[in-house]
């Protein structure tokens, strides 16, 4: 039997959050953490968490598993169970709505700030805006972000200033549009980022890189943004 300790909090009935222990029989199989949560849900239907695609594509089930942020659906038990015990908490740094469900408004507000869409003021061509394979290759390692918030909620700078620091996820996306050959708003985008908080709160501790379930590197993208700022201003 596996002991699973889960963070529980229902603001309507609980004074404060607490950890609840469950016993689960995984029949010795190395299932994913999400499968375990489904078993818990069958035991106790009051347990609440977000999930959707169950294959690491939708980014709904980001949570803190054994102390490290990750997606429950693609995290096997063998990676996170220690001494036959599994500890699951919500992503840290954002308000908890209930149990493992967090309020991601602040995260999305930062994403909205970087204008996550192509801006192009030249007349639209008859068919589509073409890119060379080299130009397209610049977007690799950037476009794959699924906005699961594992990185931003692992970042102390985002914990302390979630209203001012854009955070690793938003900055990865910011660079995705700065690097896009079809975007013509580079200067405006850079001007929006050149304050002491938006980009420069990153101190390069690389928690984001350590936790990203898609293996992306926000710290490197932030470095590229810094270099672009330096080149446009120096």
């Amino acid at each position, binding site marked *: 039997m596996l002991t699973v300790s889960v963070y529980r909090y229902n603001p309507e009935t609980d004074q404060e959050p607490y950890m609840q222990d469950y016993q689960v029989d995984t029949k010795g199989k190395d299932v994913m953490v999400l499968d375990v949560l489904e078993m818990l849900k069958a035991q106790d239907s009051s347990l609440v968490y977000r999930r959707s695609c169950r294959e690491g594509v939708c980014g709904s089930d980001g949570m803190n598993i054994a102390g490290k942020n990750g997606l429950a659906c693609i995290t096997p038990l063998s990676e996170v169970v220690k001494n036959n015990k599994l500890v699951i908490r919500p992503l840290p740094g954002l308000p908890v709505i209930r149990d493992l469900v967090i309020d991601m408004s602040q995260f999305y507000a930062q994403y909205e700030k970087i204008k996550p869409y192509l801006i192009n003021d030249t007349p639209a061509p008859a068919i589509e805006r073409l890119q060379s394979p080299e130009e397209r290759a610049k977007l690799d390692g950037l476009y794959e972000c699924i906005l699961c918030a594992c990185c931003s909620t692992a970042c102390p700078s985002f914990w*302390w*200033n979630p*209203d001012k620091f854009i955070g690793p996820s938003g900055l990865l996306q910011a660079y995705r549009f700065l690097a896009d050959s079809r975007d013509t708003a580079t200067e405006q985008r850079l001007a929006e*980022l050149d*304050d002491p*908080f938006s980009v420069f*709160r990153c101190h390069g501790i690389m928690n984001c890189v350590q936790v990203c379930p898609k293996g992306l590197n926000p710290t490197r993208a932030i470095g590229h943004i810094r270099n672009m700022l*330096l080149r446009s201003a120096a």
Partner: protein
Amino acid sequence: MVTSVTSFGRSGLSDWLLQRITATIMTAYLIFIVAYFGFNDVDYASWKALNAGLPMKMFSLLTVLSIAIHSWIGMWGVLTDYVTVRLMGAKATALRMVFQLGVIAVSLLYVVWAIDVLWGI
């Protein structure tokens, strides 16, 4: 764009760049001083002769200025991380201003003191 009036250079880029430039100057000074003591048999006369020269005075003053700027930017970063309304409530802004003015005052006083010491040699 987040506006901030208490950071050193107002722009994140200039603060970031200054932080690195001042760090380089401080490192160079440290290496020079350690090497000077390591490779020379230093007594009062030679130490005074070294510091009496204008180039050394300028190098020392540059380092003191670097320390002042570096600590202003660094302490501003620390204070805006931890002494904030988000973490401490409404009193945080006044408290942070007191701390920031303290850091700025101490930094400037050290610079003035250093000028007095260096040009008093």
